[in-house]
């Protein structure tokens, strides 16, 4: 299995990716944590005062949504170019190319975990009682990792052939951002759409983070089933498509 055989390469690529990410900005690591907080403040001001959103603990509600969403957004958009950005590892030597995608996803995953860690003192500061259900967090985040990895495999493979995919993906992500309950409460979604709305894996994931971290409830079995099925389907689709398209990577790059 390539994950075991090449674990050292995966580790080195992930670490160097993180180093580049945190060294390239002046504030480095602090900046990446400040970013979701500032975004929360902007969205809080707009949605609280302009749209008059009525939601308990709206600041934390927003922040959890944003931090969760950032993993999907940053993970997929940076991993999309994982193959194209490392031409020498594709055309000069053979390594299983999934490694490049996985390392990039793992780097975003690490950042995401750090962002969630910063969330904890804020939760306590705002008087949220953390319950034992917080222990569901690793499980949820692990399933999320598979979803992001599966999606990134599809994107990275297609991006080799279609170099404007990043533009298209940006628009899709923007649409998905507003189709998921990140900046507004679910209560504003019209009832007739609610059935389909709650099947969206991104919605379910974000709700699960809120249940376990903010409300101290365990996620429901139905929710767990939806995200696991989504993760399995994306992983399978990603692996199959990547395997098919991989054959001509070296010719296209």
């Amino acid at each position, binding site marked *: 299995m390539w994950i075991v055989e090449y674990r050292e*390469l995966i580790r*080195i690529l992930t670490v160097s990716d993180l180093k580049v990410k945190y060294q390239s900005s002046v504030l480095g690591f602090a900046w990446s944590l400040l970013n979701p907080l500032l975004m929360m403040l902007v969205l809080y001001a707009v949605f609280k005062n302009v749209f008059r959103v009525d939601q308990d603990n709206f600041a934390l509600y927003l922040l959890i949504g944003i931090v969760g969403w950032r993993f999907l957004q940053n993970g997929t958009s940076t991993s999309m170019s994982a193959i194209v950005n490392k031409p020498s590892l594709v*055309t*000069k030597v*053979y390594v299983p190319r999934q490694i490049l995608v996985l390392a990039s996803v793992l780097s975003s995953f690490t950042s995401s975990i750090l962002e969630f860690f910063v969330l904890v003192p804020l939760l306590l500061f705002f008087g949220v009682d953390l319950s034992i259900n917080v222990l569901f967090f690793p499980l949820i985040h692990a399933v999320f990792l598979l979803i992001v990895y599966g999606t990134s495999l599809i994107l990275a493979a297609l991006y080799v052939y279609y170099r404007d995919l990043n533009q298209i993906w940006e628009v899709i992500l923007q649409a998905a951002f507003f189709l998921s309950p990140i900046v507004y409460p679910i209560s504003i979604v019209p009832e007739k759409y609610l059935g389909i709305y709650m099947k969206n894996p991104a919605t379910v994931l974000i709700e699960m983070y809120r249940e376990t971290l903010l409300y101290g409830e365990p996620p429901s079995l139905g929710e767990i089933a939806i995200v696991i099925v989504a993760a399995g389907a994306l992983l399978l689709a990603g692996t199959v498509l990547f395997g098919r398209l991989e054959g001509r990577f*070296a010719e*296209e790059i």
Partner: protein
Amino acid sequence: MPLPFNLAGLKAIEAVINGGDGAADRNGNDAIVVEGLSKRFRIPHEKKSTFYDHLVGMVRGGSYTYEVFSALEDVSFTVGRGETFGVIGPNGCGKSTLLKVLAGVLRPDAGRVRIAGKIAPFLELGVGFHTELTATENIRLYGAIMGLSRRQIEGKREEILEFAELKRFENMKLKNFSSGMYVKLAFSTAVQTDPDVLLVDEVLSVGDEAFQNKCAEKIDEIRRAGKTILLVSHDLESVRDLCERCLFLDEGRITALGGAEEVVEEYLRRMQ
């Protein structure tokens, strides 16, 4: 929409690349087995690399047209375990394509490639080397690319730096290296990863004369250790000296295959 890749074609390929099953043949005497290998490149008349290009192409009408360039045509040969095997031919004859298929970088359109054991492709020296990293960090990176574990890499580190005569510079960033130092480090790293099969593409002449001699000795040592070497070169002299058997490729086809001496003669006769 005409896809720029061929899904159906890929399914038919059963190339076991990089010794996936760990054994090239049943009796274990062959290190490399190549059967009926063909590789064609599609060169489109109009390169379409975005969704936008495809959309415009559809609106305008017209079909997806391309030229087929056949880089390798029905190539079959076997390299025995412990053999040093040469590949010669004029520029553009398919040598590099063959090497890339053997390395697993390119997928063949037809035929099979089987390689027993661990393969070290020297398609280029210093693959994966990063100029912002130090010599030691680059050794670790290269070892990891070769699929070595952390412990194996640490075990080789001293030896590599010793051989490259760069012990003093182990913590210097590669960007501050001279080009001579760079190739020395690259060569040393590559030969020390202990592969079973070496693919060598014109990299024997690196560094100063003293280091070149050292490289030749090292290659000889690797040969004596029973490793298999596939050498692609324009340097007919070294092919004649080093190789037992040789393959002469021209326009993607085998023109001659046999003892190195005769094949080199044949090549010289044809090229005049």
